[in-house]
């Protein structure tokens, strides 16, 4: 009885244990800059970027404050802010590290109409002509530097474009040949492409329709007509934002997908489109570039649940791309191999946090983020740590492996949890034929493929050094087994002989 009681008590204690364990927080709430380790755990890291300057209506001395600004565009030292609510565009310039207002663009000379109506984006071509996505005037308007009207791109008259739908250009990019790619609201065939002379050249890079089998069956066979009408129809969605890099590839972000697709890397929230509209983004990391891997902030008050919503993307000159997540106000940097370099940011109203981050741009290596709610432009400068990361990956891309290893070691002094640094050092060690050292570093980075390469060399080297001993060991082994077999056989022969003798005796 006594014993049974004890067992029962232990079982009860085990049952109650999980309830006592208390709330588990994932730690993201208190971490500003971080990285993911191999297991997807959040590893706090030194700041890669810090706020250098914040630009508001006050610092610019604007009479009418900015109202729901939507987009940023950098052209040389000029920064354009599309102030949608006031139907105008602010042109700023950076002189001695601070931004000041150059002019306010709110009308285009000799255009019809001259003013903007709900402008959403701006871009410039190589001559410096400005292209504005003038959404509710149904046009992309082009003007020269002195704001004289040149031309406009309007709704294509082609039959592939739905003539009943309104043409609402929201985002645009211009390539080096003057071709214009427009992301239009409610156009789900992809980006609208115009030749430089204004002729419609078709759609590229359509988002694929996504639905799962279960939804399809449910809708097709188990729903009434009324229910079907209530449900979302399976149509592809337009992109959220686009950016064209220096090589003419279009980076697009997408925020409409199911969480399941994202986990299975079927959603592609960040894409790199080639001229045929195919996604050629390289993903060599364990986790695809999707922003945050944890979608719930635990039990915190500001509980933003769901995957990152990447509202904008920009690509630095070293092919590092940076996307901004409006959901949690975070900025994610990935290198050209799709490996996350850092993530930073949080929701809030402090100067280094965002409430409604909608746009991101870069000027050199500085990042500029626009917050539509607080109508504030925040300029971030890379810290020593951030600069070292850029330096190391650039050195590596240029083939200066030994110098990059030195830089990676500097990074390790600042952040010993930086996975990429171990791979960088390991690669340099491999070039110096230090295979066991390389193996150790690759193992720390959990890099199977690299480890395997180093290990093969190591094994070969070891074999060449110890071939004599290996041969000797094999010889001894063979001799041992052969000898044992021989002895056993003899033994059995003797036994059998004895037995047959015994049998004949009887």
């Amino acid at each position, binding site marked *: 009885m006594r014993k049974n009681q004890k067992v029962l008590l232990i*079982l*009860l204690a085990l*049952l*109650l244990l999980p309830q006592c364990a208390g709330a588990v927080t994932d730690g993201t709430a208190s971490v500003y800059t971080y990285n993911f380790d191999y*297991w997807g755990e959040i590893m706090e890291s030194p700041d890669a970027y810090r706020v250098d300057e914040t630009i508001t209506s006050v610092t610019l001395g604007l009479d009418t404050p900015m109202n729901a600004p939507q987009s940023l565009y950098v052209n040389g030292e000029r920064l354009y802010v599309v102030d949608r609510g006031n139907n105008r565009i602010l042109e700023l310039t950076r002189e001695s590290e601070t931004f000041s207002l150059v002019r306010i663009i709110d009308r285009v000379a000799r255009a019809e109409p001259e003013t903007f109506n709900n402008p959403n984006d701006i871009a410039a071509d190589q001559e410096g002509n400005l292209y504005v996505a003038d959404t509710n005037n149904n046009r992309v308007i082009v003007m020269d530097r002195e704001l004289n009207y040149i031309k406009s791109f309007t709704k294509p008259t082609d039959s592939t474009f739905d003539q009943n739908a309104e043409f609402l250009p929201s985002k645009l990019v211009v390539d080096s040949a003057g071709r214009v790619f427009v992301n239009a609201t409610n156009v789900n065939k992809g980006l609208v492409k115009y030749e430089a002379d204004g002729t419609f050249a078709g759609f590229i890079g359509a988002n694929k329709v996504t639905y799962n089998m279960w939804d399809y069956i449910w809708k097709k066979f188990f729903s009434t007509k009324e229910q079907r009408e209530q449900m979302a129809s399976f149509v592809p969605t337009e992109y959220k934002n686009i950016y064209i890099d220096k090589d003419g590839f279009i980076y697009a972000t997408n925020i409409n997908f199911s969480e399941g697709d994202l986990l299975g890397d079927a959603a592609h929230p960040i894409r790199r489109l080639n001229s045929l509209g195919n996604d050629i983004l390289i993903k060599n990391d364990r986790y695809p570039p999707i922003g945050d891997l944890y979608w719930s902030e635990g039990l915190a008050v500001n509980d933003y649940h769901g995957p990152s919503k990447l509202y904008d993307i920009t690509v630095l000159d070293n092919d590092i791309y940076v996307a901004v997540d409006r959901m949690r106000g975070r900025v994610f940097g990935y290198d050209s191999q799709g490996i996350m370099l850092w993530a930073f940011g949080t929701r809030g109203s402090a100067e280094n946090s965002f409430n409604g981050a909608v746009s991101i741009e870069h000027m050199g290596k500085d990042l500029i983020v626009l917050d539509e709610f607080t109508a504030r432009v925040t300029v971030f400068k890379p810290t020593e740590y951030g600069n070292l990361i850029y330096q190391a990956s650039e050195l590596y891309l240029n083939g200066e492996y030994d110098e990059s290893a030195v830089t990676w070691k500097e990074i390790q002094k600042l952040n010993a949890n930086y996975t990429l640094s171990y791979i960088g050092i390991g690669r340099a060690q491999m070039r110096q034929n230090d295979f066991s050292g390389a193996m150790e570093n690759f193992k720390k980075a*959990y890099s*199977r493929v690299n480890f*395997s390469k180093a290990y093969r060399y190591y094994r070969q080297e070891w074999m060449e050094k110890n071939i004599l001993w290996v041969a000797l060991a094999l010889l001894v082994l063979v001799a041992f087994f052969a000898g044992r077999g021989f002895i056993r056989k003899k033994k059995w022969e003797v036994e059998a002989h004895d037995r047959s003798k015994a049998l004949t005796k009887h």
Partner: protein
Amino acid sequence: MTEAKRLQSTDRPSEKGFSRYLASLRYALYVITHPFDGFWDLNREKRGSLAAANTMLFLFLLTYVLKLMYTNFQFIMVPIQYINVYQRMASLALPFLVLCLANWALTTLFDGKGRFKDIYIGMCYALTPYVLIQLPCILLSHVLAYDEADFYSVLISFSEIWCGFLVFVALMEIHDFGPGKTLISIVATVIGAMVILFLVMVFFSLLSDAFSFFASLYKEVRFRLS
């Protein structure tokens, strides 16, 4: 089969004590190579022993844990910082025992000849290939490179298929079933194990409800009295 081996295999268990234990352990090697004979004689001829079966189960759990901890990271990537060895062992041992129990419960109803002890011993002996192959595989994993992983994975799958085959034959021989009936009994066993787990969970959840009821009753009474 050579004469020597035949003689060895049909030796009657005449030894006592520790040497009998060793003989029954060594008999596992015979069982896995001659499952039909081996499992038939395992209990009927008393060639196996409970001690050897326990040893085999323990070795199986040990192999599993060693595999997780010491296999080269190229082949098995486990978050080593989160591994609780005892928890991992229990997560294999408990389902094993529950399945044995479920099988015994069901086969008793359907003319199975095996007792619980017979089933337990048989199942434990069927795990032998896992230990024999996967334990050396841990060493092998430190010799192979990642692009030679096929050698490793073939051995691992081979050991698992072998074990599965042995389990099937063991149940067939222990209960004296035909292959079809064995298959049905295996499916039923899995369902039975789920039922057992469900009942256990219901029991403990009711128990904790009852406990909290009395706890709150006590609190209430104290509150009223004070």
